[in-house]
């Protein structure tokens, strides 16, 4: 603890030396961003009928669910008294932005995501229950919630309901992540956070990261299954990723230019921080490697005629850089916002521990956990139903 004082440069209010929100709070907007982004990609197919992205529809929904299930865990782990977290449901303080978290989360999880996945998979679940025996049958029977009707009318009703849920889902996904932005953007004491642009920047960066991860997972899963990548699909996703990225980058630049031009009382302090302790993470990793390079790569794939193989390579690199850049953006918002003193007279240092409750190890675990959850979900609810054996031989011939 005493070592913390050596990380201080200039003057911090004494209570500010120690950082309050750790790497776990960086994970929270990162994970929910992936959820919102993946869902919005799925709704492209459902609501806007972009048929080209159909191969990723179910994958996107399952990805959103896997990340949403893990998203509250870092928050829970961070709380001084996790056992009291239910108080937020029982006695929410209505003026608090944070108090709404539980309600928005449950709404999104139960009324949107789980419902939509269930409707999408109901036919498969019923068929799986009919075709299996023993515990497996019992499991799918429970998942089917007693439904067994696969008539044309019933399936049409599924589809219509699912369309409505998606339609409600889009503003809900906006709410889920715009709200996360609001938690930071509404803190007037902190000039690094306090901007009405924060929710909308969070929203577009969420779309960018969610689209990137589904793109990456689709290519990875297809490769692992030994199938051919649907190029029309990845090209379309790549295009939407580029569009979302351009809007996201414009918004972030607008914020930056506004800050530079206005140059209010906090500007010199923040400017110095960006040029020193945050330089690598903010300028090099977030803006150059995590934004400009992937935008250039995606634009390249769009305008230059590249071979399929080259385009896949471009998409893999662009998506990986994107995820790194968005993670850096979350880091720079959460951690960067606590590195300077609210007196604007000094800076502190974030020292991440390793195997402690809020250390690097649990953070890595929580970043990997959604992939394990996703793997399990994909086993239970295959996103790409296997074709019958005879059609498979034709496909592979």
């Amino acid at each position, binding site marked *: 603890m005493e070592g913390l*004082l050596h990380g201080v440069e200039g003057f911090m209010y004494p209570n500010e030396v120690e950082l309050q929100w750790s790497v776990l709070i960086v994970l929270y907007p990162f994970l929910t961003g992936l959820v919102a982004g993946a869902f919005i990609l799925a709704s492209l197919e459902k609501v806007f009928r972009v048929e080209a992205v159909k191969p990723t529809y179910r994958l996107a929904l399952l990805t959103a669910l896997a990340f949403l299930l893990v998203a509250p865990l870092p928050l829970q782990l961070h709380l001084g*008294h996790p056992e009291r977290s239910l*108080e937020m449901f029982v006695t929410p303080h209505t*003026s608090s932005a944070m108090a709404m978290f539980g309600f928005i989360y449950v709404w999104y999880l139960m009324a949107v995501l789980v419902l939509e996945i269930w409707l999408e998979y109901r036919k498969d679940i019923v068929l799986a229950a009919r075709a299996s025996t023993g515990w497996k049958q019992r499991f799918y029977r429970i998942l089917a919630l007693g439904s067994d009707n696969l008539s044309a009318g019933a399936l049409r009703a599924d589809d219509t309901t699912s369309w409505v849920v998606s339609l409600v889902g889009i503003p809900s996904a906006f709410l889920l992540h715009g709200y996360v932005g609001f938690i930071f953007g509404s803190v*007037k004491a902190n000039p690094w956070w306090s901007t009405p642009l924060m929710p909308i920047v969070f929203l577009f960066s969420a779309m960018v990261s969610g689209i990137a991860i589904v793109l990456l997972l689709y290519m990875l899963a297809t490769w692992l299954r030994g199938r051919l990548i649907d190029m029309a699909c990845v090209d379309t996703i790549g295009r939407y990723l580029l569009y979302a990225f351009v809007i996201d980058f414009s918004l972030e630049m607008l914020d930056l230019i506004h800050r530079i031009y206005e140059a209010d009382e906090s500007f010199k302090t923040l400017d110095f921080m960006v040029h020193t302790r945050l330089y690598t993470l903010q300028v090099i990793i977030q803006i150059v490697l995590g934004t400009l390079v992937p935008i250039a790569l995606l634009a390249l794939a769009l305008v230059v005629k590249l071979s399929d193989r080259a385009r896949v390579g471009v998409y893999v690199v662009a998506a990986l850089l994107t995820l790194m850049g968005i993670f850096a953006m979350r880091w720079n918002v959460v951690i960067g916002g606590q590195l300077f003193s609210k007196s604007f007279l000094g800076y502190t240092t974030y020292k991440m521990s390793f195997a402690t409750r809020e250390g690097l190890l649990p953070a890595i675990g929580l970043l990997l956990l959604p992939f394990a959850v996703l793997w399990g979900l994909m086993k239970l609810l295959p996103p790409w139903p296997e074709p019958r054996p005879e059609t498979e031989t034709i496909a592979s011939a």
Partner: protein
Amino acid sequence: MNEGRREFLQMSGHLLWLTGAAALAYDYVLAGEPEAAPNYKVTEHWWAMIIDVEKCIGCGNCVRACKEENDVPREPFYFRTWVERYHLPEGDLEHPVVDSPNGGYDGFPEKYREGDGSKNFFVPKLCNQCAHSPCVQVCPVGATFESPDGTVLVDKDYCLGCRYCVQACPYGCRFIDPRTNTVDKCNLCYHRITKGLTTACCEACPTGSRQLGDLKNPKDPIHEFLRTHKVQVLKPHMATGSKAYYNGLDGSVR
């Protein structure tokens, strides 16, 4: 629905309801009796603090008294009140040199010489007991709240330790107590002021630089002081309704 089933559902409903009620009642019993202050009426007070910057000599008595009285952790990262030393070499408002070694707990080792052309002074800080507290606004469960007597208090048995309030305070007045993992801050020595005493810091201040005042008490000298002095609050642009009034506050203080 057959009778047996209806009865069963009714019984389960009652049980569920009763369990909740019993849990609440048990919580109430566990909470015990609040510390008695029989003659204190919260609605008859509106507490504030006057800080006379020109009278502060940076002795650190207030910081020590506060830590002692309120059992504040002794490490240099936890303060309900602390003292800052401002040094303005050329009278440059924008670039003050500020330090607060151990929050002023051990006083200040001499650093600046009189007559070198610089401006030097001490600024005691504490929770501003804001009337429109950003920290109260953001608490997700209402564990921190504005009492009708104008103090901002914390219910430690209800605090989640989410630290949102620490982020929301523009003055850096809050910290997480490492022993309880809940938030802590100055409560104007609530256990003292509700019994007619003044705060520990005011009591220990040798120059009368800090004075507790009750704005609802017409006889309190705070009214006369506020009328006759040019007072200012910290960061007025934050519009927090701060009730820590500083006399002789330099424009460089933030």
